[in-house]
């Protein structure tokens, strides 16, 4: 299994509060990704990173920001959480280029009340 951890694994928060999810990898892979999984939608890309301090938007990036100050850590921040951001969030990594297979972390279940 790829060395990917996510924290926290579960979180319940209230509307309007900031939330930060962390993805940590021990594989020294270049690419890191954040997805959300919702019923009827599969997984959808939020943001991704192709190197330290290099990030770009995915298809559902509104309301989210990311940061990557070290190769091993990729943070996803919800500046002001809304109920529509209740979801399961997955981090993924790929080794050298974006055409490499992505390997996923265990996921974080976030509930916004």
């Amino acid at each position, binding site marked *: 299994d790829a060395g990917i951890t996510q924290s926290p694994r579960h979180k319940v928060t209230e509307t309007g509060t900031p939330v930060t999810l962390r993805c940590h990898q021990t594989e020294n892979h270049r690419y890191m990704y954040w997805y959300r999984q919702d019923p*009827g*939608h*599969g*997984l*959808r*890309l939020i943001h*991704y990173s*192709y190197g330290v301090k290099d990030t*770009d938007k*995915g298809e559902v990036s509104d309301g989210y920001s990311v940061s990557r100050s070290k190769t091993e850590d990729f943070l996803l921040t919800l500046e002001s959480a809304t109920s529509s951001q209740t979801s*399961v969030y*997955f981090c*993924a990594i790929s080794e050298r*280029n*974006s*055409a490499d*297979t*992505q*390997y*996923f972390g*265990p*996921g974080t279940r976030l509930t916004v009340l």
Partner: protein
Amino acid sequence: AQTVTQSQPEMSVQEAETVTLSCTYDTSESNYYLFWYKQPPSRQMILVIRQEAYKQQNATENRFSVNFQKAAKSFSLKISDSQLGDTAMYFCAFMKPSATSGTYKYIFGTGTRLKVLA
């Protein structure tokens, strides 16, 4: 728009039997990759199989094989000798380079829930 369609929301199969999950995709690209991922109740996304579009030979991984029909844009997954541990949600995914950035990105189908019956 690029889409991935899994037309079977739920399926069941008897243990030791064979089952095929269907996936179709829509693209005008010639260079892309296709995947099947398994998501058991633990929620972990596990790679099952990967297929490069330029390869004519169908990928195989132990009991899992694909039927890749490029002209028909079809990518089905066959599970042979089904086991109870195969019970999971299965996602088909299509990966192609972005027209703007060149970065390859996944597009996932909505999944097929497979139950293996004892």
